[in-house]
């Protein structure tokens, strides 16, 4: 990780010295570093909602499974991550995806809390595995772990930084972020420009070490600068340092607490949030959802003899 250069930081407003220590994250929001432990988790009930066998004969093919977890009301679970341990059809084909261990937490639609006489809607998670054989009739077994993020269980799992536009050029201050070892800075245009140049220099240096010289080196650097993303009007850019993979999601909330985020993007180690072309209003806040030990549950699931469509 590389510290942001002091000259890249605007001195607008208070709290400017924080930028001296701001680090850019190798692991950004939503790409949690941790993976499911190998230790077995307690089992939970699970049933199939639907299967989608998407067969296109190319890399977009997959078997999508919607899994219902009746022990966990949907209103309580904000995000989930699944790790498939075993997946095999009745012809013996191994369906465990190759990249399963790299998956980040996926935000879920929480829905509303059930009324006193209503049965709470269960959490439904989606997982993707490889396609079964055409000749297969059933999934002989699918088992794995599901990690659930329940922010309501820990006040420190959700933090809101009010009046977010006022933090431009500064590192956000929040006890919950500090407790999770997360550091977030709201970059100004000048800081983003400086960061672009810093990353281009870094790549130039790496290329130079590999023996690239002269015009080729310069054209590599300028190609990198051209490819660097340009935020749209109203976008806000954050540098996120999250070595423990604690950030599950960041959102822009209006004065009434409504999520106004229309797009999220992670580029070159930075997190970009979009709302409207005007950008966040002075009374908007940034909500950061954080995984904490109290807000996480890990459960195992096993299903057998699931008929295929």
């Amino acid at each position, binding site marked *: 990780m590389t510290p942001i250069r002091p000259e890249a930081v605007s001195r607008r407003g208070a709290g400017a010295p924080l930028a001296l220590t701001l680090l850019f994250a190798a692991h950004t929001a939503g790409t949690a570093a941790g993976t499911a432990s190998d230790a077995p988790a307690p089992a939970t009930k699970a049933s199939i909602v639907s299967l*989608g066998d998407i067969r296109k*004969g190319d890399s977009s093919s997959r078997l999508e499974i919607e899994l219902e977890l009746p022990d966990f009301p949907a209103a309580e679970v904000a995000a989930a991550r699944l790790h498939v341990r075993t997946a095999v059809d009745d012809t013996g084909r191994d369906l465990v995806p190759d990249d399963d261990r790299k998956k980040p937490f996926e935000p879920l639609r929480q829905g509303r809390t059930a009324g006193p006489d209503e049965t709470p809607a269960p959490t439904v998670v989606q997982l993707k595995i490889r396609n079964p054989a055409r000749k297969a009739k059933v999934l002989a077994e699918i088992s794995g772990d599901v990690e659930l993020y329940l922010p309501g269980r820990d006040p420190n799992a959700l933090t809101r930084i009010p009046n977010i536009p006022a933090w431009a050029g500064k590192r956000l201050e929040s006890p919950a972020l500090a407790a999770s070892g997360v550091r977030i800075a709201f970059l100004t245009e000048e800081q983003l420009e400086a960061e672009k140049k810093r990353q281009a220099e870094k790549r130039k240096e790496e290329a130079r070490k590999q023996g690239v010289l002269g015009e080729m080196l310069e054209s590599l650097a300028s190609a990198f600068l051209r490819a660097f993303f340009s935020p749209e009007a109203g976008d806000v850019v954050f540098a996120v340092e999250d070595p423990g993979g604690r950030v599950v999601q960041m959102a822009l909330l209006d004065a009434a607490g409504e999520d106004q985020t229309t797009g999220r993007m992670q580029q070159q180690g930075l997190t970009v949030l979009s709302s409207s072309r005007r950008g966040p209003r002075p009374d908007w806040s940034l909500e950061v959802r954080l995984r904490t030990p109290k807000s996480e549950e890990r459960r195992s699931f096993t299903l057998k003899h699931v008929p295929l*469509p």
Partner: protein
Amino acid sequence: MRPFRTTLRSAPISVLLALCPAGTPLLAQAPVRVAVEEVSDDRYSAGPFPGTLELKLKLSGDGMDGVQGVRFLVKAARDDQGNVIQLKESLRNDFESPESSLSQKIVLKNPARKASSVTVSGTVELFSPKRDPNADVAVPNAFAKLNKPLSSKGLKASKVEVSVLSKERWAEEQKKQKPSEKDLAEMRAEAKKQGASEQEIEAAIALVQGLSEAFGGVPENGVILSGPGAGMELIQSVKILGPDGEEIHVSSTMKQGDQKTKTMILDASKPVPPNASLRFTILTDKARFTVPFELKDVPLP
């Protein structure tokens, strides 16, 4: 696992046929070939999406020269287990441009899971306006008399009656279409009779009103063409030409209406001058021809 397309290319049984329309000497020398490019078989156990088997096709050959419209009519589809594969119902089967992804696709219901290939046959109907001079109809000064059928021998010969409507006239037409308070009261009463809750009824009413407004809007430079449904259906495309003969770009065309009256709303890129012309491409019989196709033993992914 080999990629499917590679498998398809190396398949011992040809899925590519050169076909000629019966009794058309021109095409006997200039075949139209139908080949399968991609196959996707999306299968669902439940949920909002129906499963589909989609064959993405490629048309080629000298017979495609000048073709501006394509539509496939599937007559039979079977999997290698002997099961008949049903056609997927579609709302419309219009001629589509050969470049459009819509035109190059056959959509069927899923074959049996254990099937390994399918055979599909039918005809492809092609529209080539250069085969019939009457397929290309120019109407000069088409905007001179609004709200009256265009006077054109070419349109008349194809039994196409079309009027350019003013925005005011269109607004009046829309007003007539808009559900009245009486209509809404009847809808409420009928829904109540059928046991719908107040909330459900109001949601349905809002939907009806919303749809009525959504389809009534005309873009700033919109050109509204309207006429009896049967004739309007024969209009494959319309170009707007300025007084200098330069085409005025149309970014989108919206079609609406029923068998009785159909309307096309063209979103022009700039205001259309009153002395502009319209150039219609008409689906005349002489400009249309069909060729049979059979796609044999297409491997399933």
